[in-house]
Structures are given as C-alpha cells and as structure tokens.
C-alpha cells in the first residue's frame, strides 16, 4: 500500500492535479485515512517541492502546479479531516492593502501557502481595514497576510493592524506582511508578527506562526 503514497508524492511533485484527485479518492475508498493520505503522500511531495525549489531545480510555474495539485487533494480531504477533529493548518485571509493595486506578489504567496496546506481567503487588492476585519469575523482565520508594493501604501498595513486592535481581534490572529519595500524593521515597527521576503518564505513563515500558536 506504500505504492499509493509514493504515487501521491510524485503526483504533487509533477503537478498533476487530476491524478491527485483520483488517487485521493481511490485511497479513501480502499480505507486509508485522510490523515495518512495527507501526511504520507501529499506533504511528502510538497516537502520535496520545497527542497527542489530552494536548490534551483524547480521553478515558480512548476511549484504553482504542485501547489494547485495539493489544493485539489485538500479539497477532498479537508472536510473529512475537520470532521475527524484532526488538527488543521487553518485559514489565511490574504489581501493587498488599501490604495495598492498590485496583485501578483500577494497571489503568489497565497498559492504557496495553499500548497503548504492552508486554506486561503483571497480578498484581492485595494483592501481597506474594515474589509479585513469583516473577513476575519466571517472566516475566523489563523493568519492575516498583507501585501504592499509601494512605500506610500505600506503604511496602510500599520493602519490595518491598529484597526484590528480597535475591533478587539488582534489577539485572535497572527499578522504577516510582505512586498518589495517591506523589511523586518518595518514589520517590527508596526507590530506585525512576521515578515517574508518572498513567496516561499511567506509560506514557511505561515507554518511557523501556526506551530508557535
């Protein structure tokens, strides 16, 4: 039965979403648990993706295919896992802050986080603090991710964090920030919980934030 795990991992590595859907369904039918399929198959594949990307043997478009495959598997597994009371990585509410129309960096981080096993609620761009707050109330995420590409708009990250405090939601979520002009210093200054310098490190950070919680 180890064969199906190997094929799941390979499917993730090769970014074959349809194959993953088939394999996950087949595994469940054969009586394997959702947890086993996730831990021994999908995550093994994604871990290898991470290693290969870092080494320069895989490229962004391939990693995104893998992340999409992971997401395809999770769509099936998530409800089962939740039902069985398994510990999940949780949700991330993601958005580019108010005044900023840059989309692609935030989308990349979202896709990478999805690949890492998170459920993503993508609020889009030009998201004002109130929209973030409503989304937190509605989706109960573990993490809020904010992106800004401009030195002028990055201040909106600070405003959003303040708004979270005022709404009494700050302690419920971890906040992570990123974008070209953002650095560790700025992240500390506005009281965010972490900063990622690129999409994979954003996903790493997200994992750390929930494991520390």
């Amino acid at each position: 039965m180890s064969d199906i795990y190997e094929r799941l991992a390979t499917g993730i590595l090769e970014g074959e979403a349809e194959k993953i859907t088939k394999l996950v369904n087949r595994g469940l039918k054969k009586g394997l648990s959702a947890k086993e399929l996730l831990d021994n198959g999908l995550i093994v594949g994604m871990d290898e993706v991470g290693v290969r990307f870092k080494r320069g043997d895989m490229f962004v478009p391939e990693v995104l295919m893998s992340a999409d495959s992971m997401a395809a598997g999770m769509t099936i597994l998530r409800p089962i896992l939740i039902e069985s009371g398994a510990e999940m990585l949780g949700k991330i509410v993601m958005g580019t802050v108010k005044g900023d129309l840059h989309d692609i960096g935030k989308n990349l981080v979202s896709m990478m986080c999805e690949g890492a096993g998170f459920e993503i609620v993508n609020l889009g761009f030009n998201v004002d603090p109130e929209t973030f707050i409503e989304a937190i109330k509605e989706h109960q995420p573990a993490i809020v991710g904010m992106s800004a590409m401009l030195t002028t708009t990055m201040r909106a990250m600070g405003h959003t964090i303040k708004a979270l405090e005022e709404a009494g939601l700050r302690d419920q979520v971890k906040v992570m920030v990123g974008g070209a002009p953002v650095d560790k210093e700025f992240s500390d200054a506005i009281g965010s919980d972490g900063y990622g310098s690129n999409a994979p490190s954003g996903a790493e950070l997200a994992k750390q934030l929930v494991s520390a919680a």
Partner: protein
Amino acid sequence: MRGNYKVNSGTRFRMLSDDQLEELLGGVLHLLEYTGLEVHHEESLEILKKAGAWVDGKRVRIPSYLVRKSLELAPRSFTIFSRDGNSENDIIIGPGRAHFGPGPTCPNFIDIESMDRRPYVKSDVPNVAKMVDALPNIDFCESLGTVDDVHHDLGALYEFAGMFPNTSKPIVAWSYDKDDSAGIHEIAIAEAGGQDAFEKRPNYVHYCEPLSPLISTGEALDKLIFAATNRIPLIFTPCPIAGGTAPVTAAGIITQGAAESWMGLVIAQAIQPGLPFFMGGVFSVMDMSAMILSYGAPELSLMMAGLTDLAHYVGLPLWQTGGCTDSKTFDEQAIIEGSLSVFFSALSGGDMTHDVGYTESAMTGSVFQLCAMDEAIGYSRRITHGIEVTEETLAVKVIDNVGPNGHYLREQHTRDHYKTEYWYPNLCNRRNYEEWEEDGKKTMKDRTVARVHEILATHKPTPIKPETEEVIKKVLAEAEERVKED
C-alpha cells in the same frame, strides 16, 4: 573626386523587421480596441470618452483610429534644456541619439565611504546629482533612491529639491501624487522664469507609471493630467514582468506594455496636443527560480531593443533601461551585466536609458556602478559613432606620402584626427605592467572608488538662482505643513 557623402549613419542595431513591427503594431491596436484596459480615475474616463474611446464602467477600449491620431500628434524630436542655459547639457531627442541616466526609488544605497548597503537617506541625493553633473556620459538625473529619513509622503519632493541645485543636467522627476508634482513644478518654473518660459524651454521630465497587466491607477493618471496640463514632457512607462504580469514571450510583453503606455498617450494628447511623450519602460523577466524581476537578464536588453524598434516605428521616443545589474555588490557580475546592457541600449538607440547605477535588481542604488557605467557608455558611444568614410578619412594621400616603412606619428593627418577618432578611457587602464605596478596595482574597482571620491570632493555644479532657493525652502515648508495636518 568622390561625391557620395549623403548618407550619414552611425552603428545602430535593429531587432525587428518592418513586417514584424507591423504585426506588433496590429497586436497593440487590437488589444486596445477589443480587450481594453482598466482606468481607475473618473476624470480620465471622462477625457477618454470625450476623445472617442468606448467606456464601460472602469473598462476602456480605444478604437485604433484614435490611437493612430494620438501617435501622430506626439513629436519624435524635441529638446529638454539644461536649467542653466549650458547647451552642452541639453538633451536633444531625435533619431540616432541615445541618452543615459540613473533610475529612481531604490530603498537602499551603497554608502560612499564604507561601501556597505544601508537605507537611502536625504544626504545621498546631492551626491548622486553631483556625480551625474560631473560624469561626461551621463545625460540626465534621477536620484537612485527613495529618501528614508523624511516624512514618507515627501520623499519625491526632497529628492527633487536635493537634485535640482546640484546638477544642471535635466532631471527626470517621479512623485507620489499631484501635490508632489505641483511642488516640483513650482521649483522648476521658478528657475526657468515662469510657466511661459518653461513651456518654451522645459528643464525637466515628468515620470509616472501604469500597472501591469492593463491597469492605470488614480495616482498615475492624476500626475499624467498634471504634466499634460502644464506641458511638462512626460514619460508613461509600465514595468511588466514577463511570465508574471505579462506574457512570458518577448513579443507578448512588448504588445501588452505598449498598450499600457499608449493608454496614457491618448489621454495626454487629448489634453495637450503635441506634448512630448516617451513610451517605455522596464521590460524584463521574472526569474522563475529567484522570483525577482531581473535587471541583469539578456532578455531585458532583448525586449527593450524590440520595444525601441516599435517606438521608433510609430514615431515615439523610448524610455529605455540599461546599466543595471542583479549583483548585490560592485563586482564582476555588476560590470558584465551593466556594460552589456548599456552597449545594447546604445546600439538600439533608445532615446533615454535609465536605471544606470541600479544594483541588486533595483533594490540598491550605487554611484560606483554609475561611475563605472559612465566608462561603458563612453566606450559604447565610440562604437555607435561608427566609421566616417570621406576623402579625408580614407587618407589615401597620407598613406602615399608616408609610403612603405614610414610612420604616421608626425603626420598632420594624425594630429588632426587622433582625438576625435579615438575614445580615451577614464577608468580602464592601458598602461604597461611596470607603470601599473608602480601606481600600486590598482584594480578597476580601486580606480572607480577613487574617481567617485575625487568628483564628490572637487566638483562644483552651477548654482541655481537665489530666488529658486527661496522657492525650494517655501515648497518644502508647505509640504511639511501639509503632512502635519494628516
């Protein structure tokens, strides 16, 4: 006697054939007419509608006749003037001319003393401007950074206020919003002698950028409308990332990026027919491993050369990119990537090539890179200057006079031409080993650092008028007041 002296052509490179350019043009027109762009700006939507564009909510589609009309209205040749009347520093835009200068908005700077990377600060601005003013092959000024140690809304204004007194070469000014733009313009017209005088002899260029893919933001269009209304020569330049925010193919990114620029062109020409307008930008690839927009990739030069051909084909000047690198420091990679892209920009004849002096993929500005690139530009310009063939340069008579076994060192012909036929390096060392050894075995890096230090210690730019200094003080004070109210 020879008589065929009619054709004067330097060494230029053409990437695309007329047939290919006609296909690209067709692609851009198709995109503007059928796909359209999003315009996040009410006033611009009104202007476009009035001009004949089809507006549907934020989505604007522009019929090709309107695009062609706008292309026709924009001039191919015009002049940006030095602020002090020194015609040596004027930039004459027109066929066969390539100009170079730094870029804006790097968060970091290579410290001039320690050579360490640190945030870009206000006191760096005058130094960058002085370097630009002194380097013979740098033609226009940008600041190489975003000022970190002033109120975050006032960075662009402080940059202009720091550059303007320290170089008489034309400045390309970016800004956050139209308040900045108004402040910058007030300073520039004070020196020019009023709005009318400025319109006759514009002394700076206004820079703004749309977003890829296919979006024009409110701030960018605010600034565009300000520039067009005040007849400030305008650069409207996207920064599409192949494989990320634009098609991965060179032809695809050129098509999309040109459409993004021409949206601005249509608005600008509707407001101010004949406004000098540069299409542009930074067209490069997303490195699919490092996940950066590469400033050292060969595709940057390739795409920019293709875009240059398209711009010239439709009769627009181009805002080019070169002299930049992905290297984190001033090393061999920085020199290779910078020099090759500079050479390619010169060959393709891009009208204004910016980002000279960028390192770390536009994250860090470096006057050392700028200084070394000045050398590479000089070298490139000698090559693009080409070979002049006339009776005088053929030198048949001179060869006959000297004959076999003679030498040319004492010939009048040699003395007449050796200075204009040769380019002499400022940094590259051609001395023999013993002299080089005697001089301390200095490397290119050593000599570049020494030249930067020497220029900054000795170079004196032409001062601005005392009344302009007053205007700068006033503009900055008003701006500080404005942000205090926030």
